[in-house]
């Protein structure tokens, strides 16, 4: 009876084999190509069976299925905080303005927008824009939307609280109705970033929300967007939309204009990367977001799958806690910037689909200073700087100062674990005992703001392509209860930088703004409160039958344009 | 009595491979049973009597197997029958009563149901439930189970030991078999119940002419009940004869040893003498007489070769060299 168990070892082998067979390996195809010509036909068939797998389209299907990596954090345009939520919401709702696939801003509901002075904006609304219930969008709806987002405790469900999107209205003061199609917005300060920021506020119907309340709006959203809400399942794991027949057509600058192409759109959450890719290969979904960079080459070789990427808007840094040794020493911070080979990380971890950061702003930001070149990889320089700071290698190569090793924990979130581990590995290579701890963002954030941690690899969305919304969050010193320094995890506080950031916010002249921001960027670059890492591209994949689709820089899925073959 | 015996075993040998070697639990056993006869097989536990019974029904569980010999039932060799044909015999022609009634009754089914199953298997009542149940109740009262209608639905654990044994007998009798193999039917019961059960079996024998093979370690019980007795030791038969022959003139030293072990009221001897020594390892039975090592009358020659049977009186066979003057069987 005991001998029975001997067999399990051979069974192990079978399992491994099974895994190897079921795993589509690109090598198979390459080998096939090398075969003599007369055998190609036969072998190709074999290869297709062993490899993958043309997504089979269900005949007559006019439904577009998009797989998201995470559930949307909400479906109320005023009250959410994730890109997934924005993706769903912006297919249901429209804003006054919208953004194209890169950073251009175009009028959507607004017919025209003009500055009356540096603090006053006049918005003329397009006529005939219909909500999904058939009512027309008018000035009252815009004003109601602004107030709902901005006023304290304006969201009454589940408990009265202030909208999470408040920050996107900047120095909003008040909004007045001039006529049914004209709104004048008064700001309390000049707001040069207004256009990019307004993209993120979607207009709700005053009549509808006052009638059904926030709870009703969440249960059955109603907007002016190209799609109507049909249903959603448990915790927004699945959201079903259908084409809105009376859609006004969308931003006239952005072709195609008109009703949505597909009759139905479904958002489905598939958190596991492998499963999401498998679902695309199996033909169950049409578009998948957040394709792991490792899989790009594999997927590109699969017939019937298109892979596209676009410069993302989530730059990644490793912020040092500058209030704590050893990071109080600027030399250490600079040394670490030299110690990490960003290009190798880009090549290996991101499969080439990323760019190195030359400081605080991502290279695609409209105000990024192109003269700031990313810190080069220079191990000798790093060691020299560390030596100046008093850290010298011991016999085993570990850096020591006063008998203590240079050791710290790098915190990060799960999605950034590979790049963080790569950084830690490179730091260990110069003799730093760096280890990694993975957290959930919500958990680690208060600890970072309390300066309890040592280093943090994180990203921060910069989808507005303007320093505002970003630079004051990351590099301004922390001002509790305000938006300043809300994402400042390094504890970096430089009075000059603070002042420059505030100046930039209200400077309407682009050239002058550039000067201001260039100075700020240079200061941050030199003082290196962070290890400036990379800006990864957003990679998405779709079935071949999906047409007129491309990922957007702000990683939003605009399904209005997408068609199915 | 007819000439052909009802059941005849010829050189039956059953072996069990074990880690220590091949155990010959039943070695070269030859026996015959006549119609309506009461035969006793006596021996210490582990001597192979139960295995002999199971071999007749071909119920030896793997890895054990019947290595040689024949078991002729009404002239047909049971060992050569197909599995299906063998199933027809089991329970119908040859039934068995096992020794531990509690563990032999299936705890998961009501007793009545278990008796009925015998009827169903052999289509005794045309698989007609009401008729089957009627017959079961009849059987239950026949074996002395009181208020059978109520107890039909009761489970084995609700029965007393004696009642369980009666139920087992009822199961065995259900198809009115020609042979009843009773393997220590009373061992686990107390004395009064024992007597009742033996009494029941005798009545069955008388009423139906069922031949009964009583397997027991209790020579006394066999003497009281049986017409003929076979004594078994270490897988071999050592003495066969009528009850009188075996009890009054035991010829094998082992039989005599068994008799002295039994406290007997009738006998003059009052001292009980246990047989010295132990039963040999069945995987390693010495050549010659298996009992030799424990035998007070052992001679060197006893350990040389297998001892044949010597017929010392008509029908009285014994495997002992002390009788080598008699003709070997």
């Amino acid at each position, binding site marked *: 009876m005991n001998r029975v*168990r001997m067999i399990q070892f051979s069974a*192990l082998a079978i399992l491994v084999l099974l*895994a190897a067979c079921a795993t*589509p390996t690109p090598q198979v195809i390459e080998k096939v190509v090398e075969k003599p010509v007369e055998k190609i036909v036969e072998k190709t068939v074999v290869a297709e069976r062993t490899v993958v797998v043309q997504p089979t389209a269900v005949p007559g299907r006019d439904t577009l299925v998009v797989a998201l990596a995470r559930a949307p954090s909400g479906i109320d345009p005023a009250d959410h905080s994730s890109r997934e939520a924005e993706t769903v919401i912006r297919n249901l709702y429209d804003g006054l303005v919208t953004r194209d696939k890169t950073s251009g801003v175009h009028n959507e509901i607004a017919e025209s927008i003009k500055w009356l002075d540096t603090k006053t904006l006049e918005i003329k609304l397009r006529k005939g824009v219909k909500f999904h219930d058939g009512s027309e969008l008018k000035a009252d709806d815009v004003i109601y939307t602004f107030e709902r987002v901005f006023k304290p405790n304006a969201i009454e469900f589940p408990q009265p609280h202030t909208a999470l999107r408040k920050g996107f209205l900047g120095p909003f003061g008040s909004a007045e109705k001039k006529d049914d199609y004209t709104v004048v917005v008064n700001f309390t300060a000049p707001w040069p970033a207004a256009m990019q920021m307004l993209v993120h506020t979607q207009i709700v119907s005053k009549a509808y929300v006052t009638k059904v309340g926030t709870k009703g709006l969440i249960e059955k959203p109603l907007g002016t967007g190209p799609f109507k809400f049909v249903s959603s399942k448990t915790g927004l794991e699945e959201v079903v939309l259908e084409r809105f027949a009376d859609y006004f057509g969308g931003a006239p600058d952005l072709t195609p204009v008109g009703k949505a192409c597909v009759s139905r759109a479904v958002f489905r959450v598939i958190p596991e990367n492998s499963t999401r*890719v498998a679902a695309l290969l199996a033909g169950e979904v049409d578009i998948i977001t957040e394709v792991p960079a490792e899989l790009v080459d594999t997927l590109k070789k699969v017939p019937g799958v298109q892979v596209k990427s676009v410069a993302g808007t989530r730059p990644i840094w490793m912020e040092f806690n500058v209030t704590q040794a050893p990071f109080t020493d600027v030399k250490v911070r600079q040394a670490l910037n030299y110690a990490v080979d960003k290009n190798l990380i880009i090549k290996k971890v991101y499969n080439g689909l990323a760019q190195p950061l030359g400081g605080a702003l991502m290279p695609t930001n409209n105000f990024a200073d192109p003269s700031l070149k990313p810190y080069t990889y220079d191990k000798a320089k790093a060691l020299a700087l560390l030596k100046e700071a008093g850290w010298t290698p011991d016999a085993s190569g570990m850096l020591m100062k006063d008998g203590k090793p240079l050791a710290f924990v790098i915190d990060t979130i799960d999605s950034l674990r590979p790049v963080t*581990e790569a950084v830690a590995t490179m730091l260990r290579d110069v003799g730093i005992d760096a280890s990694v701890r993975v957290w959930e963002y919500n958990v680690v954030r208060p600890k970072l703001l309390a300066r309890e941690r040592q280093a943090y690899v994180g990203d921060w969305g910069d989808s507005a392509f303007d320093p505002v919304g970003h630079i004051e969050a990351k590099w301004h010193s922390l001002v509790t209860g305000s938006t300043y320094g809300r994402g400042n995890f390094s504890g970096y506080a430089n009075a000059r930088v603070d002042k420059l950031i505030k100046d930039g916010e209200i400077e309407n002249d682009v050239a002058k703004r550039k000067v201001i921001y260039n100075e700020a960027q240079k200061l941050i670059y030199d003082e290196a409160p962070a290890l400036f890492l990379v800006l990864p591209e957003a990679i998405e994949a779709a079935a071949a039958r999906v047409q007129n689709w491309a990922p957007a820089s702000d990683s939003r899925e605009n399904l209005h344009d997408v068609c199915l073959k | 009595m007819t000439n052909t015996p009802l059941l005849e075993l010829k050189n039956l040998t059953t072996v069990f491979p074990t880690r220590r070697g091949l155990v010959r639990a039943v070695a070269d056993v030859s026996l015959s049973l006549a119609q309506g006869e009461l035969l006793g097989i006596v021996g210490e536990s582990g001597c192979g009597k139960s295995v002999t019974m199971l071999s007749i029904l071909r119920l030896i569980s793997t890895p054990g197997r019947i290595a040689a010999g024949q078991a002729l039932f009404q002239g047909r060799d049971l060992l050569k029958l197909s599995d299906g044909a063998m199933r027809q015999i089991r329970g119908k022609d040859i039934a068995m009563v096992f020794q531990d009634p509690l563990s032999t009754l299936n705890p998961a089914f009501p007793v009545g149901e278990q008796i009925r199953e015998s009827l169903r298997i052999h289509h005794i009542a045309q698989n007609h439930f009401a008729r089957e149940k009627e017959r079961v109740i009849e059987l239950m009262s026949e074996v002395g189970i009181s208020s059978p209608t109520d107890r039909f639905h009761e489970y084995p654990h609700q029965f007393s030991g004696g009642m369980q044994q009666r139920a087992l007998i009822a199961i065995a009798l259900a198809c009115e078999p020609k042979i009843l193999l009773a393997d220590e039917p009373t061992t686990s019961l107390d004395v009064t119940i024992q007597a009742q059960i033996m009494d029941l079996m005798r009545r069955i024998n008388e009423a139906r002419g069922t031949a009964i093979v009583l397997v027991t370690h209790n020579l006394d019980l066999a003497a009281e009940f049986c017409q003929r007795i076979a004594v078994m030791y270490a897988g071999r038969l050592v003495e066969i004869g009528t009850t009188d022959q075996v009890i009054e003139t035991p010829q094998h030293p082992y039989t005599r040893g068994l008799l002295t072990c039994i406290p007997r009221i009738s006998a003059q001897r009052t001292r009980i003498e246990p047989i010295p020594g132990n039963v040999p390892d069945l995987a390693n039975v010495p050549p010659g007489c298996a009992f030799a090592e424990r035998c007070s009358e052992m001679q060197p020659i006893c350990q040389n070769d297998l001892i044949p049977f010597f017929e010392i009186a008509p029908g009285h066979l014994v495997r002992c060299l002390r009788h080598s003057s008699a003709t070997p069987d």
Partner: protein
Amino acid sequence: MTAHAPTRVARGWDYSFRIRLRLWWRALAELGYELWQRPVVLLGGIVVAAFILAAVFAAQITIHDPTRGTLLLRFEPPAWEAEGNWKYPLGTDDQGRDLLTRIIYGTRVSLAVGLLSVAISVIVGTALGAFAGYYRGWLDEILSRFADLLLAFPFLIFAIGVMAFLGPGFVNLVMALAFKGWVEFFRLVRGEVLGERTKEYVDGARVAGQSNLAIIVSEILPNVIQSVFVLGTLRLGYMIIMEASLSFLGLGIQPPTPAWGSMVASGRDYLLVAWWVSTFPGLAILLLVVAINIFGEGLRDILDPRLKIE
């Protein structure tokens, strides 16, 4: 007078210790013989021993650093594959670290967590079980009720719950596992002690004037220790799976310390391009746990056939 008594006790202890030692030796020799008779069990034992040795001498038998690697060597395939290299027999992971080295070091975590949590479970469970079974009364009542309550929780869910509140880390992990692990030992020992306490030798010891504690420690416990040992072996495999599951969920050991569960978890994204990264740590879990189970079940058959727990 007063000086006399301790000497006697001491001599008694010494004497019984020597006898016991001899008995243990004999038992051990017998065990060795029985194992020799069961080659598969022996093989299980050898595999377990090999893992233990690998854990202890990890630094001596590996040539790579488990936490250092280079992205240049990312996803090197196992040696037998077309582009493999015998320098990295099982290939490298997403950080270019040698997978075999990490698996060998990972043995440390798995075994340390497994052994420690079982050890704590054994000590706590045995002590409480012995006292509860020996003294009965309210202590027994409370402990037994509490044990029943803990049994109402599925093990993994309880451990996840506790870890969620304690936070990840080695000590917390061991604590979380032991917090529920002791129950089985408690029930086993309590049951055995309940049976043993009424036996003659215990009465004898009591008549001879031994204290209750001495009776428990020197008379009763040696009789239940075999069952505890067998159960402990079987639980070890279970605890290792629990550790792997918790690490897989990110509640266990944090990177870069190699732990099998988190290696499996972090490798799963690469299953389509580098199947080995999560497969081999998975197989390591499989192999060790299977070996422990075979060995444990073999021990059970040899030492304590009564103990049949699935």
